[in-house]
């Protein structure tokens, strides 16, 4: 548990304090960015019971590579890159796993981890979005997650995914077409 809150508003100051071994400073970073990481990981993998492990791994990797953060980009961008890379690795791992056991291949393991307080309407809405996202190709899913769940602009998405702006624009447009097709069937 985090016993005291850390008041630094400046990201660099927070990072420096965390690097100096201040547990509360790193706790503050986790608190600030956990929803953002959850949107990426759960958006791309589905709201599975395993996504929390990936989320924890994101912050552990962040802690281990914090000394490499020079402040050239925003801390959120840096964290987002780690989250996207780890999630894409997990998608690949799952694909390999299922291809070993299934000839049809394209199954992904996800169970809905539904909070108790959620209303039926909201639950149904989340299920609809998750089904649609899971049905998308993974290269489109990551773009759609960045845009639809995180609200990033095309330029920000390109920066996070380290892709040319043109590629992001073309994938967004193709993803929109694929998403329309998927939503027609749901």
């Amino acid at each position: 548990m985090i016993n005291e809150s850390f008041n630094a508003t400046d990201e660099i100051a927070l990072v420096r304090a965390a690097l100096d071994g201040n547990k509360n400073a790193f706790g503050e970073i986790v608190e600030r960015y956990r929803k953002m990481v959850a949107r990426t990981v759960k958006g791309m993998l589905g709201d599975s019971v395993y996504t929390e492990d990936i989320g924890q791994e994101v912050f552990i990797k962040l802690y281990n590579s914090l000394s490499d953060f020079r402040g050239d980009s925003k801390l959120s961008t840096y964290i987002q890159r780690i989250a996207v890379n780890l999630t894409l690795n997990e998608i690949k791992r799952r694909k390999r796993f299922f291809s070993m056991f299934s000839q049809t291949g394209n199954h992904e393991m996800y169970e809905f981890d539904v909070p108790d307080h959620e209303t039926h309407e909201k639950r149904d809405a989340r299920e609809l979005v998750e089904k649609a996202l899971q049905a998308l190709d993974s290269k489109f899913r990551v773009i759609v997650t960045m845009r639809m769940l995180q609200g990033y602009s095309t330029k920000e998405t390109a920066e996070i995914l380290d892709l040319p702006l043109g590629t992001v624009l073309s994938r967004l447009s193709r993803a929109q077409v694929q998403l329309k097709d998927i939503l027609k069937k749901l």
Partner: protein
Amino acid sequence: MKFSEIKKLMIDSLGNNPEYGESVRKLEEAGISYDFSEGFAGRVLNKIFSADVVVAKQIELSRYLNLAFSRIAITGVAAIVMLLISIFLMEGDLSFNSIIGISDSQTESIVCLLSGN
């Protein structure tokens, strides 16, 4: 919110119009929001800071191994250099024959030596 409205918002959020941010906000209002379970930050911190001791020991071990390796490597290089110097002083050159110790032997004598005649 109706399913048809959510579907429209999803499609609109991918569009190039500057209003896509509004679609994102509306989707969040409709319940499309994500978070990890309660106590997530505490669990992350426990994992990181309890693992610190193990990591520190691993770092210490690799530092010792590096130090031992560099000492062995330096001693080995020094021995090789001394051997080459002594060969050069005794034989007068550093040819392959002088290194393997047959510099002053004639080919015939080696054949005799090996065949026993």
